[in-house]
């Protein structure tokens, strides 16, 4: 009697363990929100590989490991705040040009899901806006969620040690009320400080823009 009960208990325990194991594996996809490493200023930025609008693959660590500071720009060609920084002011392109000889790599990322109207149009806008840096396709939203990217634009800067040094807005003027020269461009400021080996004085600001168009 006792040994049969032991056997039953052992079987039950094994069953529970198996279910637990399956549950852990099963929540792998959901672990993005609960278990996967999230981007935090001062900590190592999550590595990723994405394909750009010309079909080329890019991995974050390939740039940092060869001594480049990397700027990530969450992008949506139809968002008025992105349009402002491409068509009204050449904010992004000029910043990219300013730092191009200084071992800074600029990567735009579009996390719009496949059904959204702003998915799949990056090549068209790269051409009409004369964008020379890659626009990465993050249609599953996986990278956006690792970085908790909320808006377009949403800016991040990663240093050559792979540490996240800036997270936030492109500048301090969401309503475009200031003259361009009066705006504080947080990314320009942070890049200057990082390249000079200094602390980033405004490392976290509230990003402004349209919401990133994640899949449901």
């Amino acid at each position, binding site marked *: 009697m006792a040994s049969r009960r032991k056997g039953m208990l052992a079987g039950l325990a094994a069953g529970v363990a198996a279910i637990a194991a399956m549950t852990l594996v099963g929540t792998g996809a959901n672990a993005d929100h609960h278990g996967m490493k999230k981007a935090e200023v001062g900590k190592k930025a999550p590595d990723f590989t994405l394909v750009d609008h010309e079909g080329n693959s890019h991995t974050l660590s390939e740039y940092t490991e060869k001594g480049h500071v990397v700027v990530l720009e969450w992008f949506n060609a139809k968002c008025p705040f992105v349009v402002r920084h491409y068509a009204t002011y050449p904010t992004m392109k000029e910043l990219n040009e300013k730092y191009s000889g200084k071992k800074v790599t600029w990567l735009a990322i579009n996390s719009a899901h496949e059904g959204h109207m702003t998915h799949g149009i990056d090549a068209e806008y790269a051409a009409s806006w004369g964008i020379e840096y890659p626009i990465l396709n993050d249609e599953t*939203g996986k990278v956006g969620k690792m970085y908790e990217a*909320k808006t377009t634009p949403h800016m991040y800067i990663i240093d050559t040690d792979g540490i996240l040094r800036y997270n936030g807005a492109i500048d301090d003027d969401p309503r475009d009320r200031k003259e361009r020269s009066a705006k504080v461009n947080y990314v320009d400021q942070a890049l200057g400080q990082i390249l000079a080996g200094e602390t980033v004085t405004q490392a976290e600001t509230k990003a402004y823009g349209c919401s990133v168009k*994640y899949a449901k």
Partner: protein
Amino acid sequence: MLLVCSLVMPLAGVAHAQFGEPAFGSPPAEKTGSELVSMSLVLDRPVRSGASTEVAVVFDIEPDWYVYWLNPGETGLPPDVRWELPAGVSVSGPRWPAPDRKVLAGGIVDYVHVGRLVLFYELHADDDATIPTDASIKASADWLVCKDVCLLGNGDASVSASVDDPADSSAASGLSGRFASASGRIPLRGSEAVRSSWDGRTLVLRAAGADVLTWMPGPTEDAVPTRILDQGRAEGDTIRIEYEVGGDAEDVWGVLAVESEGRTHWYELHPGLPGER
């Protein structure tokens, strides 16, 4: 030959101009951000020296689109109103109706208004202000209006400072009567129905008998909820919201929506900072 060509081509041009694009098969022109919201002003009483009157800025929003609350949440931008007033007249406010919490794909939390947003302001005229009979009150605004894309828009509206609306039967109740739905969403302050306390850096709010509680924090730079997606809405009579509070924080405040027996009431709360005396 040349003569014929030169005769034919202009005619063809005229014909094209007359008929233009096919009348069927082409999609209707999409509305701009400025067209998706229509803005109007409603004055409660004529502006008189030494007196105050209420003025409502009304935003009528295209169905399925939305504008943002004074704290838009993690994305978006609230409408911004600017005034042009006669000399000696000033404006205070607005009182904002409570928004709806909107969770977008990816767990983005915003606070929005749909249908109609009414902002209630007060106009004050100095004792010695002279209000000409042809004086007007003008407001202009810019906004962000969204559905699955976002569009920037702007508009303006004006109203005579002196004309009373004789047809306004709700004059006795003022604009609150005329805009009862919006007015009903102005959060109540100082109500005993909600209790607040701090448990470390967790804000604890209790409303007896509630079925669902939704916390919509005011826009404060240095005091932010850290897990608003998971914690901003709770079933039952208690809600717990963890905060990160920096050295420059001056206040924590917000609007609590209390759903009970199929009805919702809104309360504006100022629970102070954690660790306060």
